[in-house]
């Protein structure tokens, strides 16, 4: 018997004025899985994540996290439910130091000792951050910023992590490092990851499941291996 998926989305619809960005998206993500959301520019990938994390209001449909309906709760409450969102570009606050960015991520949790322990754990995961902990975040490189964004999200001890294009603007080598890191995190942190990527090939190489969005609808869903092998699908939606 398969256990209940940790994230279930049913008929999710989101509009910007007259434009429908998501049109009845349904998907479910298995606990501990790492899945890719793929699609061309404007397919609705970013809107999907923004709606999941409450930054964008859902116009219809439901979002269930571990069985609890989180469709209508405000964005700042999502960390309390165990859902973290790293937006496109990371959303690192460059005016703050590396340490302050991390601290911010765990601030909603009570317990100073628990937060300190978590900070040590997160720094353990990202050695480059440990060396720059008191530096302004503005001095970090692109890859380090992405690490900081990830680290800040992990400070909240999320169960589900939404990642929007972590490879954006990074060199291929750094992208590979980040992807590798995600695999390690998934294994070590009991984490479920939803990864939005423009770079379908690298996303499918580390995920176990993939959803393909087109014009706000899920047009295909399959295991990542089969999606990679499906030539027709690759040409039609992923462009490689």
């Amino acid at each position, binding site marked *: 018997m398969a256990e209940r998926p940790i994230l279930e989305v049913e008929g999710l619809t989101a509009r910007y004025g007259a434009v429908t960005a998501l049109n009845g998206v349904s998907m479910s993500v298995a606990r501990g899985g790492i899945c890719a959301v793929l699609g061309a520019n404007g397919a609705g990938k970013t809107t999907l994540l923004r709606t999941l994390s409450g930054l964008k209001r859902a116009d219809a449909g439901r979002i269930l996290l571990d069985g609890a309906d989180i469709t209508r709760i405000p964005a700042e409450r999502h960390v309390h439910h165990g859902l973290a969102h790293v937006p496109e570009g990371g*959303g690192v*606050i460059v005016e703050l130091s590396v340490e*302050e960015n991390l*601290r911010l991520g765990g601030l909603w949790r009570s317990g100073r000792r628990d937060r300190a322990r978590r900070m040590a754990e997160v720094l353990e995961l990202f050695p480059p951050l440990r060396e720059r902990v008191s530096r302004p975040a503005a001095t970090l490189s692109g890859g380090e910023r992405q690490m900081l964004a990830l680290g800040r999200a992990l400070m909240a001890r999320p169960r589900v992590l939404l990642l929007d294009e972590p490879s954006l603007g990074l060199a291929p080598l750094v992208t590979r490092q980040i992807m590798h890191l995600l695999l390690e995190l998934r294994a070590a942190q009991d984490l479920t990851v939803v990864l939005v990527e423009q770079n379908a090939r690298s996303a499918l190489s580390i995920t176990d499941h993939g959803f393909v969005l087109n014009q706000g609808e899920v047009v295909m869903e399959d295991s990542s291996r089969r999606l990679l092998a499906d030539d027709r699908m690759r040409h039609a939606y992923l462009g490689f």
Partner: protein
Amino acid sequence: MDQFLNLTLNGLSSGAVYAALALSLVIIYQATRVVNFAQPALALISVYIAYAVSQATGSYWLGFGAALLTGLVLGAATERLLIRPVHGRSPLSAIIVTLGLLLVLQGLAGMVWSNEPHSFSYPLGFRGRFSASDWFALASVGAVALLLFGLYRLTPLGLRMRAAAFRPEAARLSGVRVGLMLTTGWAIASVIGALAGMLAAPPFIFPNVLDAVFIYAIAAAVVGGLENPFGALVGGVLIGLCLSYVSGYAGPELTTLAALAILVLVLSVRPDGLFSRPTARKV
């Protein structure tokens, strides 16, 4: 030499008042990108409340506390009821709202307490070179600056407030209630404004008593760089000193002109103020 010392000390104490008011403008500008033109009116109402409380109880310090409390409530209410509804529209709407509030509150103060000046007794001596009231102005503004620094740099609330001001969306994703932080920022700023009002108003209060002080405070905030609290402090003291020298050596009728000259001079050399961040802000 003696006159120079006198003018310097005078400049310092009036500069402290400009600095406090400038600080209240900068805190709000940092958080909401709005220059709060209603700040002198919020401070004015606070001072009138202090006047009423002092009259009723006979205690200046009870009035002083009432002024700070009034500032707190007015600041929070202004953000929540008037600024929040126009948030996210053009910044001009919020500025117009604050200008409107300025006129309404000044008018209201005139209706309630009349436009005639009331004498507002002050328990600290203000005669002579560097009187007790001058000391009090410098010390209280210095204490406020230190407290603010501690709040912003060292406390979780301060971290949340900075995050909410710099990157509201990222702050929300980290669980920060951004709206609450903005309200808190306005409340704190308005308390500081009320303090500035209490320092600036005596010995008389009337509805326009803070207008000149506010003009100099805006100059101080702009000179220091609207985004920098430290700049506001330095700008305030700088303006206070310059105006004191001009008034002493060249005549008091030239002070307003001198403030304008300083503003033009600084802005022509450093358009974003003396202490602004050199990096451009990404919009």
